[in-house]
C-alpha cells in the first residue's frame, strides 16, 4: 500500500504570479518610457533608476523591521512599479532628493505602515508624488521643453550633473529659457486665467495636434501599453474606460458651448498624466475598487475630480489628487456595488 502526503484541492497550481503581473505592467510602460526619453532626454531613465533604488532600499529596510522575508517581497516587483510610476510623473531633471523623499513616503508611510503589499489604502506612487508636489513646488515645475522646440536637449552627462548638483550646465550659446518651459496644461491654465481664448493659447509652439507637443505621442504609447494590459487581462477595463469616458463626456458639451474658454476634449485626454493614470495608476487594484460596477464609479470619479482641479483648482493637473480622493471613497463604493450572488 502506498502512502501520500495530505493536501487540499485544487491540485493545479496557479500559473500566474504577483511578479508576473507587475512584470507585465512594467513591460507595458516601456514604449511610453522610451518615447519620454526621446522627447525630453535621458533624465527620465535616471529618475527611474534613482526612484527604484530608493524604493527597494526602503522596502528592504521596512521588511527587515517587520521581520518579513526579503527575497519574495523585493522580487515581487511592486516597489519597482511604484518607483517607475512616480518617476514618470516628475520633471526629468528634478534633483535626486525629490525621489528619495517621495519614495520614503510612498514605501514607508503609504505602503508598510498600512500593512505592506496588498494593504495600502492609498496608491503609494501618488502619495509620494503629492508629497513632493506640495512640499517642493519649485523643483517640481522645472519642466524641459520637448525635443522639437528646445535648441538643446540635455544628454546623459548633463542630466546626471543636473540631477545631482541641482544646476544644469548649458552650452554657452543656449539660454535656460530655450531649454525649460511651461507644460501645455500650465500654459492653458494661466492663459485662460488671463482671459485669453483657448485657440489663441494653442497657437503657442508647445501645443501639438490635439495635446501638448511630445506629450501627445507619449500618451499614445501609454495607450498602447494600456491596451496590452487589457488584452492580457492584467487590468480591468472598467477603470480606464470610465475615466476616459467621463473626461470626454464632461468636456465635450463645455467645448461645444464655449470653445473659446474650454479646451477641446482630446486636448484634455492627451495632456498631462491622464492616459498614464487611466491605464496604469487608477487601475491599481489594491487601492481601487474591487467590484465591476465599483470600478466604473471609481473611473468616473477620477475623471470628474481631475477636470474640476484642472479647471478650478490650484494645480494645472489634478490626476494624483483625483486618484487619492477616490482611494478614500473606494471601500464605501465597494460596499454599495457588490455583484448579485448566483440564485439570490
Amino acid at each position: 500500500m502506498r502512502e501520500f502526503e495530505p493536501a487540499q484541492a485544487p491540485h493545479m497550481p496557479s500559473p500566474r504570479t504577483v511578479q508576473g503581473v507587475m512584470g507585465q505592467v512594467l513591460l507595458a510602460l516601456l514604449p511610453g518610457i522610451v518615447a519620454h526619453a526621446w522627447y525630453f532626454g535621458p533624465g527620465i531613465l535616471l529618475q527611474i533608476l534613482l526612484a527604484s533604488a530608493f524604493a527597494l532600499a526602503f522596502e528592504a529596510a521596512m521588511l527587515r523591521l517587520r521581520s518579513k522575508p526579503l527575497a519574495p517581497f523585493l522580487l515581487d516587483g511592486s516597489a519597482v512599479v511604484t518607483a517607475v510610476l512616480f518617476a514618470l510623473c516628475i520633471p526629468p531633471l528634478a534633483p535626486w532628493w525629490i525621489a528619495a523623499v517621495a519614495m520614503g513616503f510612498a514605501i514607508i508611510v503609504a505602503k508598510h505602515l498600512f500593512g505592506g503589499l496588498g494593504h495600502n489604502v492609498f496608491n503609494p506612487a501618488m502619495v509620494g508624488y503629492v508629497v513632493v508636489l506640495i512640499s517642493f513646488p519649485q523643483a517640481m515645475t522645472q519642466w524641459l521643453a520637448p525635443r522639437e522646440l528646445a535648441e538643446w536637449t540635455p544628454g546623459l552627462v548633463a542630466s546626471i550633473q543636473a540631477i545631482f548638483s541641482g544646476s544644469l550646465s548649458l552650452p554657452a550659446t543656449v539660454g535656460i529659457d530655450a531649454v525649460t518651459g511651461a507644460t501645455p496644461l500650465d500654459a492653458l491654465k494661466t492663459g485662460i486665467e488671463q482671459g485669453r481664448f483657448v485657440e489663441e493659447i494653442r497657437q503657442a509652439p508647445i501645443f501639438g495636434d490635439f495635446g501638448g507637443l511630445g506629450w501627445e505621442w507619449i500618451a499614445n504609447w501609454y495607450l498602447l501599453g494600456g491596451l496590452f494590459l487589457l488584452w492580457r487581462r492584467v487590468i480591468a477595463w472598467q477603470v480606464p474606460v470610465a475615466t476616459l469616458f467621463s473626461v470626454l463626456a464632461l468636456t465635450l458639451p463645455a467645448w461645444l458651448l464655449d470653445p473659446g474658454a474650454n479646451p477641446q476634449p482630446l486636448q484634455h485626454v492627451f495632456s498631462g498624466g491622464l492616459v498614464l493614470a487611466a491605464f496604469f495608476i487608477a487601475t491599481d487594484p489594491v487601492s481601487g475598487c474591487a467590484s465591476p460596477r465599483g470600478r466604473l464609479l471609481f473611473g468616473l470619479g477620477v475623471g470628474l475630480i481631475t477636470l474640476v482641479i484642472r479647471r478650478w483648482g490650484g494645480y494645472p493637473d489634478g490626476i494624483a489628487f483625483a486618484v487619492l480622493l477616490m482611494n478614500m471613497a473606494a471601500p464605501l463604493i465597494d460596499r454599495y456595488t457588490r455583484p448579485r450572488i448566483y440564485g439570490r
Partner: protein
Amino acid sequence: MSELTAAELEQRTATAGDRLHRFHGGLRLRHNKKISCQDPVRHPVLPRELVVPLLQHGGPPATPRVRPGEQVLKGQLIGEAQGRGAHVHAPTSGVVRDVERRPMAHATGQAGDCVVIRCDGEDRWCDPAALDHWRDASPAALRAHIRQAGIVGLGGAVFPTDIKAGARGAVPIQTLVLNGAECEPYISCDEMLMREHPRRIISGALMLRHATGAGRVVIGIEDQMGAVKKSLDRAAREGGDGTVTVVRIPTIYPEGGERQLVQTLTGLEVPDGGYPHDLGLVVQNVATAAAVHQAVVDGRPMIERIVTVTGNGVGHPCNLLALLGTPVGHLVEAAGGYTDDVARLVVGGPMMGYPLRNDGEPVVKATNCLLALSHDDLRPAQAEMPCIRCGDCARVCPAQLMPQELNFQIRARQWDEVDSLGVDACIECGCCDFVCPSHIPLVSWFRYAKGEVRSQLRERAAAERARQRFEAREARLERARQEKAERLARRKKKLQDQAGRKKQIEAALQRAAAKDDTDGGSG
C-alpha cells in the same frame, strides 16, 4: 434574478437547450482527456478481496444484511437502505470475510462500516430482477425499481436517484437534463461511456423521463467531445421517441456543475437554497441513465462503474470498468502502475478532487477518476503572497462572489460580513484558486468559513432560544406576581367591603335599637 411569471418559467424550462446562455466566470482549462481515451474501456482482473462501504451515497449508511462467513452471490443485497439512503449490493460472488470499520474513500477520510468480500473468482449472479414492460409501470413503480437497484447520481453528489427523480417543486417537471458535460480536466469516464454505450444512455434517459414525469430530455455534452454527439444522435434516432435532444455546450469549467448547466441551457438560476426541480427541471448524470437502463432491462443493480485512471503519475492512463470495493491501488496496477515521480493520488479531477492518504481505499459509487499527479504537476511557481485585490477571482467566480473580499473578512473573523458576502453560495469549484497570482488557497479558506458561519448561526440560534426562554419565564413570573397582587387587592377590598357592611349593619341595628328605645319610651 428578475422575477419570471409562471408561464415564462414554463416556457424557458420546456425549451431548455434551444438557446444557450452564459454563466458568470469560469475557465477554459487544458483538457488533458485524450491520454486516457486511447483504448476502449476494459475490465481489470478480479481482485482477491473487495471492501464495499455501506455508505456510498448521500443519506444515512445502509444496514448490513450479511454476516461474516456467509456466501454471497453477485448482485445480492448486502446493505439495506435506511431512510433517504441507498441499497448496497455484492459486486461479485464470494464469502463475506468481515463486516468492519475501515477508512472509506471520502473527502473527510472518515471510517465507516464496510463489507469485506473474499472473491471466489466465479462471478456467479443471483437471480436478476428485471422490470419487464417498464412503459406500463407507473412512475412510482419505476422509481421503486431504481431504488431496489441502489442507483445514486454518478456525477459526484451520489444522491439516491429515485428520490431525486420523484422530487417535486411548486411547478411541474418540464425537462429532464442529462449531464454529459464532464468539465474537469483529465476525467473521461462519461465520455467513454457515451462513445461506447450511447443506446444505454438514450434508453435510460427515456426511463428517467418516465420516472420524473418530464416531457422531454436534453443531453448536454461538451463541444470538445468530438464523436460523442454523432453517436448519441444516432442512438437517439434509432432508440428514442423524438423527445431526446443532444446539445453541445461550450467547454468552460465548471459548466458540468448542476447549477451552471441549468444556467447554460435555460438562462435561469437555481434559487438560493433550492433545487432544479423548483424550476421544473431534473438533472441526472449520463452514467446514472445508463445504470438505470441496466437495472431495468438486465436487472443489474449498481455494482460497478467506469473509473478513469490517469495523470502523469501512472504508466498507461485508461478507463477501467471497476467493481465497487476494488482497492484503488489495484486499478493503478491495472493502468500500468505508478511512475517514479508520482506525488499525489487524487479521487476526482484536479480542481475539486480530494487526495487519498493511501491507495488501499476502495472504489465507491462516486469514484469517477483516479488522478496520479507527478511532482512537476504540483510545483507552484511561487509561495503564497498577500492578496493584491486584482479581482481575477471575482471575474472567474461562477457564483458571482467576491473571493478577495471574503478572504479579507475571513482572516479578520468577521463572520457576519462573511455570511453577507455569500460564502454559502460558493460551489468550491476552485476557479479562484487557479487564477490567483498570490497563490492563496481560497477554497480551503471558504470551506473553513462555511463551517464557522454555520456554527456561529447555530450558536446564535441557541442563544436566541435561551433568551426567548428566559424572557418567557420572566414574563410568566411577572404575570404570576401581578395576579397575586390583584388577588390580594381583591381580597383586601372584599374584607374592607365586608367590614364596611358590618359597620352599616351595626349602625342600622343601633339605629333600630335607638328607635325601639324611643318607641318604648313613648309607648
